[in-house]
Structures are given as C-alpha cells and as structure tokens.
C-alpha cells in the first residue's frame, strides 16, 4: 500500500494530475477500483443476463415460430406479426393499450397537476399526500374486486342512484363500459403516485420564486404555469416515460375487473398484456407461443417508440435555480 502511495506525489493532486491519472487508471484508488469491478458486478450481471436479457432474446427468437410449447417449432418468420395485425382481438387490445396510455396519461397528469397546485398550499398536506399515494401499493385486483361489488346491478352504487331517483342507471360492468371503468380506476389509483413525484420536485423549488411571482400579481394558475412547470419539467418528463412503461404492463386490474375470472375477461377490455396471457395460456385451445411473444414484442416496440418520441418532444434546456 505504502509503495503505491509513493507513486503519486502529493503535488499531483494539487495540480489536478491525480484526477488525470485516475482517468488513465494508474492511481492506487483506480487500480483498486479496477480490481474490484469484475467480482462486484459479475453476480448481478449474471442474474440479469440469465433471467432478464436472455429471455428477451428468446422472446424475439420464439416470435418467429409457430409453436404450441410441446411439439416442434415451425418456422414462420415475420408472418406471425402479419397474422397478429390481422387478428381483430389483437387490434382491439393494441387500441386499448393506446387508450390507457394516452387518455389515462392525460387525465392522470392533468389531475396530478391540479392536486399539486392545491396540495402545495394546503394544511395537513403531508397526510393528504400519503393517503392519496397509498393506492399504488395495492394489488390492482383489489380494486377490480371492489368495483365488481360496488357497481354490480343491485350493488351499492345503483342503490344510491335509485335513492336519488335514477331508475335506469348505466350498466356499469357491461362489456362496452368495462374499459372506461378500468380507465377511471387506473387514473384514480395512479394520480397519487405521480402527484407525490411531482410534489417532491416542487418542494425543491425555492420559495422566493413564488414570492416574486406573487409580488408581480400572478394568480395560482400563473404561478403554476410560469414557476412550477418550468422548474419541475425534468421530473415531469421522467414521469411521462414512467407512465408509458407502466401503462403497458397493466394486467391484474383488467384480469379481475368486475370479478370476472372464471373465464378470461371479454376481449373488448383486453390490453396487449392480456392478449399475450390469453394466447400463451389459453383455457381451452392450443397455446400459441409464437403469436404471444410477437404480441409482447409489439408492445415493447411501442413503449420504445413512444418513449423516444416523447423524450425528443419534451427536451428543454435544463433550468438552473
């Protein structure tokens, strides 16, 4: 140890050459770091490669075959993708995934901004924030089951409506209404989470900016538009990416919405996750693993494209404050 220390004269650090030598990997610290690098990273890389990256590669491979999981794999090339887009069920689920992403995202972020606006200047905001945050820690099935009971034909919601004089309430859980109901539940459970992230960013904004804006006579909305939004923009764009990724993963909420799980939920409410599940693990027919992985990869491409486009569109000069 002492010998290596002598390699680097004290003056080097002062002149900043220590930093340079670190970059070239000659300093003792750098040598240590290089020696530790492989043993430290190898286990995680191995787990990631075997349990995550290899499966992604295998999915790409499988998506080019016709395969029921048992018999021989039959080469189909890109025909799986063509068949996929000819399948009305897949088209519905792709459109639904988009609806959840775009409509759900717009509503979630609009409400999150409103909540941030209100919560910022509210009493007991920490408590309110915590309660609003909690639903994102709950399994989506819980909301599906609760909604299935609350909105059942003779359920409490309809009883309350009947009491208010509404004799023909909407058929909440009919096939046509399932997706809007799912969307509503999703927005309700997700807003708290995004509000918490945006608020964490908003808390970092120095109060003097708000005070200055107030002195200039800015109202709450103007303060939001000209102070909060630009200062929190970075975090908001990360949130948008996060939403895109997580909206495509939604599964258990749809699977059990309205308590429908003795058979799969009606195809009108599927998203691509459900489509993959029903193709790969069908109840009565032969599994179509090639189609399932192809559908999964389409949703991966969708996430990637939307994310890249969004990051492009949302890029702004970073703001120093």
């Amino acid at each position, binding site marked *: *140890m002492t010998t290596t220390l002598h390699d680097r004269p004290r003056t080097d650090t002062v002149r900043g050459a220590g930093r340079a030598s670190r970059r070239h990997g000659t300093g003792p610290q750098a040598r*240590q770091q290089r020696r530790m690098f492989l043993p430290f990273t190898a286990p995680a890389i191995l*787990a*990631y490669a075997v349990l995550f990256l290899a499966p*992604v590669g295998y999915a790409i491979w499988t998506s080019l075959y016709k395969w029921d999981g048992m018999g021989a794999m039959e080469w189909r090339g890109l025909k799986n993708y063509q068949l996929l887009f000819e399948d009305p069920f897949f088209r519905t689920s792709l459109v639904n995934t988009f609806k959840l992403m775009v409509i759900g995202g717009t509503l979630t972020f609009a409400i999150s901004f409103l909540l941030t606006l209100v919560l910022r200047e509210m009493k007991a905001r920490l408590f309110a924030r915590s309660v609003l*945050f909690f639903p994102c820690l709950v399994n989506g099935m819980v909301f599906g089951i609760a909604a299935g009971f609350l909105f059942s034909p003779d359920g409490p919601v309809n009883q309350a409506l009947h009491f208010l004089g509404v004799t023909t309430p909407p058929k909440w859980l009919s096939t046509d209404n399932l997706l809007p109901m799912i969307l509503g539940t999703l927005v309700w459970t997700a807003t708290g989470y995004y509000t918490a992230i945006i608020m964490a960013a908003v808390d970092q904004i120095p109060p003097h900016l708000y005070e200055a804006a107030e002195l200039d006579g800015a109202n709450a909305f103007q303060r939001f538009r000209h102070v909060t939004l630009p200062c929190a923009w970075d975090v908001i764009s990360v949130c948008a990416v996060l939403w895109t990724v997580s909206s495509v993963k939604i599964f258990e909420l749809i699977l059990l919405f309205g308590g429908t799980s003795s058979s799969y939920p009606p195809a009108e409410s599927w998203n691509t996750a459900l489509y993959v599940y029903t193709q*790969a693990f069908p109840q009565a027919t032969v599994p179509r693993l090639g189609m399932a992985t192809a559908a999964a990869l389409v949703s991966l491409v969708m996430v990637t494209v939307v994310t890249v486009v969004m990051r492009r569109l949302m890029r702004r000069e970073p703001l120093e404050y």
Partner: protein
Amino acid sequence: MRSEHGSPGPVRRIATAFVWCVVAADLLLILWIALTSIRGSTDILHEAFGLPLPPHFGNYAKAFDEGGFGPAALNSVVVSTASSLVAVALAAPCAYALARRRTRTSSALTMTFAMGLGVPGQVLVVPLFVGMAQVDLTDSQFGLTLVYVGLAMPFTVFMLTGFFSGIPAVLEEAAALDGAGPLRSFVQVVLPVARGGLITAFLLQFISAWNETLFALVLTHSQEQITLPVALASFVASAQLNGLDYGTMFAGVCVILAPMIALFSWMGTRIIQGMTVGIGK
C-alpha cells in the same frame, strides 16, 4: 417558509374540499373493505354498507382453510422476502462498482441495466415459463424467487447506483489509507453508511414482489406453491361457480392489503421517498 395569503378564493376552497373528498374516499374504501371482511355474506348482499354486528371472524378462518389463503400468505412472505434480499445483495456491490468506476464499460453497463426498466413483463413471461419448465423449476417457490430476482435487477441496480454516487468517495479513500482493501472498505465502511438506501431498495422490491400477479399465475398452480394474488384470483374464479361468498373474498383481500397498510404506516415516508427521489433523479 410559505407566505399565507388573505382569505382563499372560492376556487381554491372548492379544490381543497375536492382533495379532501378523494382522501376521505380512499380511507373509507379501506375501512369498508376491512369491515366487510368480518360481515356475513347474506348481510353484505342485503346491505352493502353496515357494521359487522355480530362480527364474523369465521370469514378469516374460512379464507385460511378453504380459500388456501393461509399457505399462500406464508409463500408470499417467503418468496417476497427471499427475492428482495437476494436482489439487494446482488445489486448493491454491482451498483457500488458502477457508481465509483466511471469508464466506458461501466456507463454502458449502467445503460444496459436502465434499459431493462422499459421492458414490460409480458415480454419475459413466455420465455421464463419455457425456461423454468426446462430446468424443472415451475410450480416451485425457488423458481418464482429466481424470476423475481431477475425482474428486480434493473430497478434495484439503477436506484442503488444513484444512491451510491451520492455517498462521498472520501470515506473509502480514508479507509484505503488505513490499509483496507476494496472488499473490506465496501463491507465495513460503505455498507453501514448506505443502510438507508439498502432498506429502501429492499422495501420497494418487497412491495412489488408481494403484489406481483402475472408471473405468479403462470409459474405456480398447486395449493402448496401459490402466492396470495394467485389464491385470490382462483378464489374469485371458484366463487363464480359456487356462489359469491363476499365475506370470505374480502377477508382474502384484507390478507393481501394488511401488510401493505402496516408497512406504509410504519415506513411511509421512506417508501414515498424511495419511489419518488429514485426516479426524480
């Protein structure tokens, strides 16, 4: 810190009232689920909102015995705890090395891990099912644990890398001067300082493993191996054939819900911070 304005405008008052309504709705929903879980099924159908008089704690006994929620709860605890522990144990040294060594390789690796964040679970479900079947690890808690460890890698490494870069490197330099090797200074100097971040990473992983449904449904099926979400899904499925037993169903819902409520009331700020700061950076 915050300047008080005179009297709040009507818009603000309405908005504040609205926020409190949503907060109240959230709390009431949880309260309603808890109360419904100890009411008789006929009472529930008769009157959706009501007090559990007399309380039917038998719902829980029934859920644990007939619904299979008992063994499932145990499995959930085992799989979630084991997978989160292993995930953090693997990710921590890796994230530390990535945070400290700034080279092209390390930033490429960091990117590779971060890219995993964008891969939806449905891409992995078929390959992992096929792969696990080949090594005979389907319908086993060990197999499910392994899968959760793999799924946890991107987020845990990503989050901990951010966390470790926030710890000043002076600490290890001092340790190195005292003659500690990299392993020793990591274990004895860095890890104790990083305890908070490790606990947060563990908690977040535990929560996501506890609620994970897709892989659990696909990879486990026998009563001895399933986790709570699978038990609940199959209970709902069988309830549609045998008539709805809402009391027992909500008892099952409570078994899934209760640990999350407990964790959140105990470590709420830490969980919120972990889920927000880790992403905000």
